[in-house]
């Protein structure tokens, strides 16, 4: 299965988190980890609006609003 960024994910399809990029600022990395974006967690994009720069993402049965910048740092497969 191919790896790609969460910002390129299809809507309503379940993915598994591979990792979070390391070459990002520490604040973004901290925020993603605080939201619970760890490896092997399942994630579903509920509302896909890449052009708007914001995604509504379901992680551990909780909805999280992610910016494009943050979603582009999360590598998923599925």
């Amino acid at each position: 299965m191919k790896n790609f960024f969460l910002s390129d994910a299809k809507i309503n399809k379940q993915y598994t988190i591979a990792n979070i990029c390391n070459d990002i600022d520490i604040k973004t990395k901290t925020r993603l980890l605080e939201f619970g974006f760890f490896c092997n967690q399942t994630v579903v994009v509920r509302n896909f609006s890449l052009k708007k720069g914001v995604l509504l993402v379901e992680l551990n049965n909780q909805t999280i609003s992610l910016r494009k910048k943050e979603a582009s740092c999360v590598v998923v497969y599925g």
Partner: protein
Amino acid sequence: MAEILIVGNPNTGKSTFFNTLTKANAHTGNFHGVTVNFKKAECKVLNCTFVDLPGLYSMSPNSYEEEVSVNYILSHKKSCIVCLCNNQTLRRNLLLATELIDLGREVVVVVNEIGKKIIVDYNKLQEKLGVKVISLKANNKKTFKNFFSFFETKKEEKNTNENYDKFYQEKVLCGCEYYRKLLNISDKISLNNYEYLEKNIKEKYTKIDEILKYSEYKTDHIVGKSKIDKIILNKYLCLPIFLIILFVIFYLTFFSVGKFFSDILRYIIQDLIGENFVNFLNNQNTPQFVVSLVKDGIFSGVGSVVSFLPQVVILFLFLDILEQSGYISRLAFCLDDALKSVGLSGRGVYTLIMGFGCSTTASLTARNMSDNNAKIKTALLSPYMSCSAKLPVYAVIGGAFFFS
């Protein structure tokens, strides 16, 4: 008087909880980032002061209002902390609660039950966390019985085992800039910070998952998703819906309901009271300049301004409905792209819409943006929104220049 801090993730109901306790009318809204500075008020039942702090996800601040909260928590070491959690996002909310408990602070976890009932054993949760856990509904004072009885019988100043040195060390190793500046540390960020950060947060979540598993926490529905979101959040329909809502609000405020009450008020002030008073003055042979002052200055001038009051009230009512219903947060989500093209953020829509009510308070809400440039631009733009105070000015100037 003892001081109790109310902390928690954004949008868990802290300000609603604060208002119910203190009857202080702190501004609330179904929108992340409504509280941008701390507010204090007394609770007469418990004879103490509650402090409503802006929301934060953890003790690593990521924006201005989160720094306000962290500054306050770290500088008021003797204050008890009420950590407000949302029953639907308990896993994420407990990250902050466990950080404060590990810091050695006196913490009471309050779970705000919003929406659908979630299965959780609060006694087991209390046992595992090691602190008091109370469940209630933040907007219903009848559910505060356990909360009041706990604080009434609570002993003063628990002897806490504070671990500030270990806490600061951990935060610096995680690469948090706020603590590096606080402690005047100038080390460069290295890869070790990322590894340590990930390891640190994973350990915390592993501990939280164990706690929630022991407490039989079960949630199987999606938070914040409703059928109406399919329409409101639709990329083609969101803007037309917004324009229609705005048109309806302005039509009802300025041309229909608002105009009706405004005309009644103007009739009462200028015709009923004003005319009769002027006739009375004329009958008393009052000098003409006094009659003219009263008629054209006081009753016409002040009356014109006061007659805008119904329209202002109706406008604020509609703005409050938009906030409380959660529509503004959905609108921010939809307009993020359009506002980004002019260098603003989706969150700026809240500031710009509130500008129709009051530009001054609207510009204050721009502080919740993390992007500094967008924050300044939005704050500078908000005075250009046609606020309620500007309406009488437009009417007077328009009347002076364009009508005979």
